[in-house]
Structures are given as C-alpha cells and as structure tokens.
C-alpha cells in the first residue's frame, strides 16, 4: 500500500466533510427555486454550523452520557462511511477494512445511537421519533443491502471500490436488474435521509416528523454535529448511488496522479449538482405520505430490490 | 373290546348330558335351581370319571372321582344352599340379556368349541377324546353364564361350572392331571368357595343385597 493512496484517502474524506453541508445547501436552494421561493444563500449551512458551535449547550437535566456522546458517534461513523465509499478514487485503504456490508452496518450504528439518544430524555416526541426512525430503518436497511447484493452478484465482490473497478474495466451492458436496483435505491435514499415522501426535513409539525423529532433536545454544538452528520449521510448516499450506477470519472486502481484526481473531483461535483437538483425535483413533485403508509413504501422498495436479484438470476446468469 | 365300546357310548351320552345341563343353567332362572343343576353336573362328572377309571384302569382316577363326589356333589352344593338360605337369595335371579339371545350365543359357542377341539381330539388316544369339544363348550358356556348374570351367587355358580368343564377336559383329554395337581386344584377351589362365603356376608352387610349393580361404583367417570 503506497503513501499516495493514503493521501488520496485523506483528500477524499476531507472533501466529503467539507462539501457535505454545501450539498445540503444546494438542495435547499433548488427546492426553493422549484417552489419559487427566494432561495437561502448557498453557504447558509456553514453559517448555521458556526453559529451553533459557539452557542452554549442547553442540556436537559437528566440527560445521560449516552445522550452527550451520541453526536460524536454519529459524526464519527459518517466520516468513516465517507472513507469507505469511493467517491473520488477506488484504491482506498479503508475499503479493505470494511466492505459495503460493514458500510450498511455503520449506518445502522448511527441510527441506533441516534434513536437511543432520542429516548434518553424520555420526552413524548423523542421516543415517538425514535420509534418511527427504527421503523423506517428496519425496512430500509435490508432494501439497501439487497440493492448492494445486486451489484455484488454482477461483479462478485462486496467492497465498493472493486465494484467500481470491475465496472470500469469491463463496462458490461446494462443488466436488467440494475433498473430495479436503481429505483429501489432511490426510494431507500429518500427514506433514509428523512426526505419527502417519508419525512420532511424542513418541518417542525410534531406529529409528522421523524428525524427532527429526535433532535428536539439537542442544541448548540451537539446539534451542529448531528446536522453535519446527517448532511454527510446524505452525501454518502449520493456517492454510493454514483458508485453503483454512474461510476464514471472515479479514479480507478491504475490511474494515479493529480490529473485523475482532479477529473474525479470535477465529475463528483458535477454529479452532485445534478443529483441535488433531481432530489429537489422529486421532493417538490411528491407529497409526504402518512406515517402508516411509510412501511408500505419501504416494503415496495425492498421488494423491488429482491425482484432485481431474481431478475438477475433469471436473465443475467 | 365290546365293553369299552359300550363305555365310550355311555361316556358320550354323559358328556352330552353335561352340555345339556350347562344349557339349562344358562337359561335357569332361580339360584336354587342353578345349584341343583350344578350338583347334577357333579354327579355326571363323577360317573364318567369312574367309567374312565374303569376302562383305563388308572387307580388315581378313582381318587379324583371320589374327590369330585365329595367336593362337587356334596360339599359345594351344601355350602351354597346354606349360604343362599342364610342370605335369603334362593329366589331372585334375573339376567342381563334375555334367554333366547343367550341360547343363540351359546349355540354358536358350542359350534365354535367343537370346531376348535376337533383336530386336537383326533390326536388324543383316550377313550373319551371326543368329549374334549364338549368340555370346551361347557367352559365357554359357563363363561357366558357368568357374563349374563347379575347376582353374585350366580356368577360363583358359573365359576364352579367352569371348573367342572375343566375337570371334564382333564379327564377326557388326558385321563386327568397328576394327583398332586388335582389335590391342589381341589384345595384352591374349596378355599375359594370359603372366601366367597365370607365375601357374601360382607357384601350383604355393606350393601344389604347381593345384586351386582351395587358393585359398580368403582369406575372411570
């Protein structure tokens, strides 16, 4: 393993941490445009974070250590996730440490911690949010796994970088199963990142919210970390999507050197811009589901993914 | 060999008589009458045993004949008569199944018994071999009688009749069992009847009747 790959790893992680809030900001902006509101400034997320970091923490009287540790854990897991996903390059040292199943595991860890923290204070909304979050999770997670499985069956590996490599080395014709997988992935991504139609990131109408309900008790730096982590999560999902379905531009094993990296960065930003717009579009076009409908939506995603697998085995193999 | 032929004829007649008596017992109504019939069975047995003894020239058969006379003709009927007099049970006796049905069943049994005994009897060398089927029939009929009676006393009589059948079988098939066994059997029989006597009184004092439907409380419910 060469120093260069560690360097690239570092670049990738730092870049992820840096531009994740920007991505969130961009989506907000697109949504504003689409709903012809006057858009908030693009850098608003950064200002928010700064402001939050310098406020005093108002902590509930009987908040336990778990509650205070959770934001850091969330942030940590998301950063690690970012380190595993080949957003720029594929020869990632971390990718050997944890493959994509571990990646799903990391997301699960984050979710569990967040839910536990939400239950810690023992408020009505916290627990409610936690329950709903776990409900979304236990259906979304398998769906995501199934989507990944689909790719695994195509390229015979569970580590995302080698998936990308495999795809780049012999760009097979689009496998029919990929379509199912793509749709399922999109649905899961929406659900996992607390987006419409499952959840509305920009609402505080208590009875409909999921993600926000869990953050109610967080303030200041804790809140900042949580928000940052969630934007990182969104970013990570986007990158997973790219790696699985449009891996063009990612610097593969052979091609090292500054050029490839720059191209990769450019490609990533381009994809992010498009993805953000698309996401905003979807969100603006669709309406939020009743919370009871959520399981059906997710079950649909899950079934699509499984269907993709079966299709692959029927037609592909 | 003329005499032996004659004896065989007589024996057959006697056996037939036994069977007849069993049927009579099967249909018999009164306890008193049953006891009399039982005694007559004993008499017939005694006679036939004597004849067998004579024809086969086995002295021990005389003993067992004497035993029969003592036990089945004299002792047991006497005991039973005293019993039922003391218990005042000599009149009442009725059956669970009506007589014709019982008779019919008895008939079937007789046929069955003959069919069963035929091959064995053909192997026997004894002069009385053909009566083996009758002996079996008597046993089965006595069994049937025990089933169809409701009075304790009558069941006992049926039981004793069964013993008669066994005795007949023993004599007819194999000129009787060895003496020791005969004695043992007789002893058991006597003791059994004594115990029965004791029982009757206990049952009487507990249930003030010998009717068996008092003795139907122990059951699965």
């Amino acid at each position, binding site marked *: 393993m060469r120093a260069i790959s560690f360097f690239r790893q570092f670049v990738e992680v730092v870049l992820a941490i840096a531009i994740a809030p920007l991505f969130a900001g961009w989506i907000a902006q697109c949504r504003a445009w689409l709903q012809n509101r006057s858009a908030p400034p693009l850098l608003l997320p950064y200002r928010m974070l700064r402001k939050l*970091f*310098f406020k*005093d*923490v108002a*902590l*509930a009287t*009987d908040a*336990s250590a778990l509650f205070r540790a959770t934001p*850091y*854990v969330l*942030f*940590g*897991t998301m950063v690690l996730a970012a380190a595993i996903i080949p957003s720029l390059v594929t020869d990632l040292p*971390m990718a050997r*440490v*944890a*493959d994509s*199943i*571990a990646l799903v*595991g990391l997301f*699960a*860890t984050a979710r*569990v911690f967040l*839910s*536990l923290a939400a*239950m*810690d*204070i*023992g408020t*009505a*909304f916290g627990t*409610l949010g936690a*329950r709903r979050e*776990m*409900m979304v999770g*236990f259906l979304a997670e*398998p769906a995501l*796994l*199934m989507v990944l499985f689909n790719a*695994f069956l195509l390229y015979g*590996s*569970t*580590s995302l970088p080698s998936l990308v490599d495999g795809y780049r080395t012999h760009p097979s014709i689009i496998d029919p199963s990929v379509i199912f997988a793509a749709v399922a992935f999109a649905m899961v991504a929406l659900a996992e990142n607390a987006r419409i139609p499952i959840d509305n990131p920009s609402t505080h109408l208590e009875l409909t919210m999921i993600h926000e309900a869990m953050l*109610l008790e967080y303030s200041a*730096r804790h809140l900042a970390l949580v928000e940052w982590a969630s934007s990182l999560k969104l970013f990570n999902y986007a990158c997973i999507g790219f790696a699985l379905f449009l891996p063009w531009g990612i610097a593969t094993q052979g091609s090292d050197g500054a050029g490839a990296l720059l191209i990769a960065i450019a490609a990533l930003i381009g994809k992010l811009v498009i993805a953000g717009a698309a996401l905003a579009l979807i969100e603006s076009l669709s309406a939020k589901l009743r919370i*009871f409908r959520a399981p059906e939506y997710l079950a649909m995603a899950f079934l699509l*993914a*499984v269907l993709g*697998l*079966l299709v692959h*085995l029927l037609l592909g*193999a | 060999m003329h005499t032996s032929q004659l004896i065989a004829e007589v024996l057959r007649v006697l056996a037939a008589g036994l069977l007849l008596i069993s049927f009579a017992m099967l249909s018999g109504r009164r306890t008193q009458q049953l006891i009399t019939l039982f005694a007559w069975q004993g008499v017939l047995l005694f006679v036939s045993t004597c004849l067998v003894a004579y024809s086969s020239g086995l002295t021990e058969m005389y003993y067992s004949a004497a035993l029969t006379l003592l036990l089945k003709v004299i002792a047991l009927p006497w005991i039973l008569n005293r019993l039922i007099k003391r218990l005042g049970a000599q009149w009442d006796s009725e059956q669970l199944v009506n007589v014709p049905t019982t008779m019919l069943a008895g008939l079937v049994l007789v046929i*069955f018994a003959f069919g*069963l005994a035929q091959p064995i009897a053909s192997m026997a060398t004894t002069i009385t071999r053909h009566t083996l089927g009758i002996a079996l029939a008597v046993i089965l009929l006595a*069994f049937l009688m025990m*089933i169809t009676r409701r009075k304790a006393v009558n069941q006992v009589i049926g039981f004793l009749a069964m013993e008669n059948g066994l005795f007949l079988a023993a004599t007819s098939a194999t000129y009787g069992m060895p003496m020791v066994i005969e004695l043992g059997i007789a002893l058991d029989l006597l003791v059994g009847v004594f115990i029965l006597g004791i029982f009757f009184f206990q049952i009487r004092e507990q249930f003030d009747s010998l009717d*068996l439907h008092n003795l*139907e409380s122990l*059951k*699965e419910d």
Partner: protein
Amino acid sequence: MLLSANHWISGLSETLAINDLHFMLVIVGAWTMLGFAGFLRPHSIRFVARLLFPAGAILCLGIAFLAGLFLASGQAPQFVVLPLGLPDLPFHIRLDVLSGFFLLLLGVGGAGISTFAAGYFRSGEGTAPALLGLEYHLFLASMAVVILADDAYLFMVAWETMALSSYFLVTSHHRIPEIRRAGFLYLIMAHVGAVCILLSFGVLQGGSWQFTFDAMRSAHFAPFWATTAFLLALLGFGAKAGLVPMHVWLPEAHPAAPSPVSAMMSGLMLKTAIYGMLRVSFDLLSIRFWQWGVLLLVLGLFSALFGAIFAAVQTDMKRLLAYSSIENIGLIFAGIGLSILFETSNMHLFAALALTAALLHSFNHALFKSLLFLTTGSVLHATKQRSLGKLGGLIRRMPWVASLALIGTLSIAGLPPLNGFVSEWLLLQSFLFTPQLPHAFLNMLIPLGAAALALAVALSAYVMVKFYGVIFLGQPREPSLVSARDANWLERLGLIWLAAGCILVGALPQLVLRAIAPVTAKLLGDTVKSSSTFWSIAPIAQEQASYSGLILLAGILSVVAVTFVCVRLLAHGRIRRTDAWDCGYPWQTSRMQDTAEGFGQPIRHLFGTFFRMERDMPSASDTAPRYRIYIEDRLWRSVYLPIARGVQKLSDAIGFLQGGRLSIYLLYSFLTLLALLVFVL
C-alpha cells in the same frame, strides 16, 4: 505465557501419560463435587454462592483453557472409556475438534455466568441454596458430558440429566403457578425431543449393542433410513434449540428461570442442541442430501423472522430476550442448512464459510445473550420488575449495568465493530458468494434467504433499541425505581467478562475463527482462509471481501476523539442544565413516553397476520385510561392446543372401557379369548 503453559501441560501429560481429556473429566467431576459440597452448609448463601460458584467459574475457565489448547495444538482425538454404564456398553468419551470448540464456548460463557451467579443468588429466594448449587453445577457438568459423550447411551443420559437439572432450576420459584406451568411445558417438550433423538440413535445404531458413535459412523443406511434418522434428530434437537414450530416452551421457560439460569439455558444449553445437530448430521450421518440443507435453511430463516417479529411486540424483558434467542438460533440453523446445501453440491469452501459463520454466531450468541439475560437479572433484583411497562431511566441509577448492557445490545443488534456483526457479515458473505447451485429453484431460494436474513437482522436492531431504550433510558415509569441500586462487584465482574468478550471477538474475530478452522476442516475438509494479517479477515479472497473490526473500532474511536478535541479547542465546552424542551410542552410525566406496546405498534401493524391479538382500548371518558394488548402465538392455538385437546378427547373416550360393570369386564376377556382362538385356529 500461553506457550509456557502449553509446555507445562504437555510435560505433565508426558510424565503422567494423561491428556487434556483427563483434565476435563477431572473438571466435570469437580463440578459435581462442588454441587454436593453445598450440602455441607445447606442454608448458608455465603458458603454456597460466594465460595462454590466462583470455584465453578474457575473450573469453567479451566475447561475453556484446555479446549483452547487442544484446538490450538491440533492433536488427534482423545478417547477414554469409563467402567460405567450398561454391560457391553461402557461410557465412551471422546474429545475431538467439534467437541473442543463447543467446550470452549461452554467454558467462556459459563465462567461469566457463574461469576455473576455468585453475586446474584440471595438467601430466602425459592429453592435452598445448596439444592440450587447442586442443580446448577450438575447442569454445567451434564452439558460438558453431552459434548464429550461418544456413545448414544451416555449422550442420552447426559442429555436428559441436563434437561432435568435445568427443569429444577427453572422451577426454583415453584410456588408461582405460572412458573410451574412453564417448567412442565419445558420438561415435556424436552422429554419428547429426547425420545425422538433416542429413536434417531435407534436407526443409527450399528447392530446389537453397537451404540458407540464409531459404530454409527461405520454403519451404512439406505437413503430412507438416513433421512428418517436425520428428521428424528431434527425434531429432537430442534425442540431443544427452540426451532419454530417446536419453540413454544422457550419463551415460557426462559423468563420463569432465575436470570443466571436463563442465561445458561439461552447462551449455552441451546448450543448443545446445535452441537448435537452437527454431530449427527455432519459427523455420524456424513451429510447425504441437499434437501436436508433446504429444510434447515427454510426452518432456520422462518424461525429467525418469527423470533424477531415476536420479540418486537413483547412487553416482558425476559420474554423479549427469549424470542430473540429463537431468532438467533434460526440464523445459526440457516447457516448450517446453507453449509449442507453447499457441501452436497461439492462446494466445500462455501460450505466451510457457512458453517464457520454458524459456529461463530453460536459463540457470539453465547456471549451477548448471556450478558443481556444477566443484566435483566440485575434489573430484576434492583427493581423487582420484569414488565417493560414499569421500567425506565435505569441508566442513571445503575450506570454499570446500563453501560455493559449497551455493549450487549449493540452486539446483538449486529452493529460493527462488535461481535454480532462479524458472524452476520460472514453469513451474508456465504449467501452472497453462492455460485450457481445445481438446482434452479435453489438459486431462486438463495436471494430470498439473504433478504429474509437481512430483514431479521434489521428487525433485531429494532428490538434491541426497544429493549435498551425502554429499560435504561427515559424517565422511570414507576416511582419505586428511584431506589434501584447497581449490581454488586461479583455481578459486575461477570458482566464485564462477557462484555469484554463481545468487544474482543468483534475486534479480533480470527481468535475464534482459528478455533473454528479445524472443525470445518474435519467436518467438511476445507476451511475459510483467514487472511495473512492478524487484524483483518478475508474469508474468500482479499479483493472480494475483507473486514477488520479492530481497525474499524480504532477508526471510530479516533475520529470521535479527534472531533471531540477539535470541537473543544475551536469552540468551548460550556453546558447549561435546563428542563427538557420537548416543543415547549409544560408538563412532562413519565406516562408521556412511548411504552413497550407503543414501540411494538408498527410491527403489529405490519405483521398482524402472525399474531392473535386481543386489545382492550380505553374509552375517551376513562378517568385512568389503560391500553392493554395480549399477543399470542398462532402456532400455540393451531398446533399445540389441538394436540392437547385430542389427547383429552381420547382419554375421555376410552373411559367407558372401565365402566365398572363386572359382566362387561368378563365380556372383554371372553372376547379376547375368542379373538385369539380364532387367530390361532
């Protein structure tokens, strides 16, 4: 140090011509001795609990150490024949790699549980201490003997002794009728299962008096008989393992037992059933047909889902854990089934992978399930409450138990970098790298299986969040909880041991994988390659899939630390304590929190068809509104009650045979006589 110990042992063995097995038998004997030693001072809890149980724990460590040495040294199997048992059938005892692995599991798990138990048992609770100690140590010893037995008779004797001792442990609070009922259900299921196993051995036996496992290995069977033996064994061992639909006793018995016993049953005893299944199907019957694998796979996955779904709707913390045990057993069986499937299609490497996953999961389950049951024990002692509806907020009263329980929760939820994740990762791998199986529909089956597996795992995360959140987090739901006290030091020690195990196996799974490798090598002739580096595992090939719990753990910790430091340096650490905000609602009462029932609601909503539910809803005008819901297992009504009713009906029906009328009785014998006469005519 281990090496020196190894030398010392080997030196001793050479001088005395004894081997690990002898030491193990000594330990088994010592357990029994300990059990009876309790009667020296039958009522002194200090003597029995504080002295004998720790001794038992040390013996557990000893047996684990010996098993570890044996597995590490890779010796040939060792035999002993005891002059006991039936004539012509003395007790055969054999230590091979398979038993070695399960003894390791037994020792590691037992050490923690015994230590905890030493602190757990109080005087004046249920059975007298001495009796409890006897039953407990007999239970341990019989489990060890089950694993070591090498002939059918000894196996059955140990097996039933195990069931019996555990039954008495379960019913140690026998004054409570529910507990008696649970114990009865447990024992009858165990006994029927045992008879099935016995019959399976009856099929397997090699001829007259040929009940040794060697004879069975060498015997040859027609396919039909092989399958019969397999099915009987599946019935028997499945009933013990709690495989659906033979699971009904498990959620009754586990909660009824004192917590260390529940831990022992769930963590260790169920594994003896796994052991038996492996012994019979892989070793004695050297697997024959892929259909067996399919059967196990389907049953296992169904049990996994079933267990997870039912666990999610439980309102009793120990029942919840019991159902989660069903789920985990299901996963293990699925792994075994997969392994059989691969082995019968000559893919030894993948078979080994699946089996490795199953064995590793057994080991992990022994660790975290025991840990969690023990924590429920501490909670029970501290609060006298078992119902989730009356708990909450204990993390502030019992920090030790809470933090250790958190580790257990995370690992049973299958989250990296803890041990639960590793085994589930391996299992997914073995599902994933299924090359083309010979049968078309099997190929269809595999992805579905993977889906079910993923669903079950995700559900278990849901369940565990409910478990931990409702018990330890939030506001105490009962005022009495304020007086809850933390576990005493012995209990803590036991919990720490197990929790440390969870973390260690999570970080360095290859420690256990090294122990598993010889097992798969023996049973399947192939082993998964644990990769060159000691910190990461790559079962098939580095580029296909690799995982390193250690680095992941280090990574998370370091990132967290860096973040923390950065935040503190760049910003500040000021904190102001206030009331909870909760959208500004003025009154916060603990009744406002989500309850266990509430947490189960989505599952009930989704999987309503699995349950029989009876709700009583409060009306709007209730002064003290209470929402109650009774969940029941459909299988209970659809399978077990009918059987019971059938027996009842039959026994009612035959009552007339004993009608009390002498004439009828005479008629019976008369007819019997006639019938037999006709028969011989």
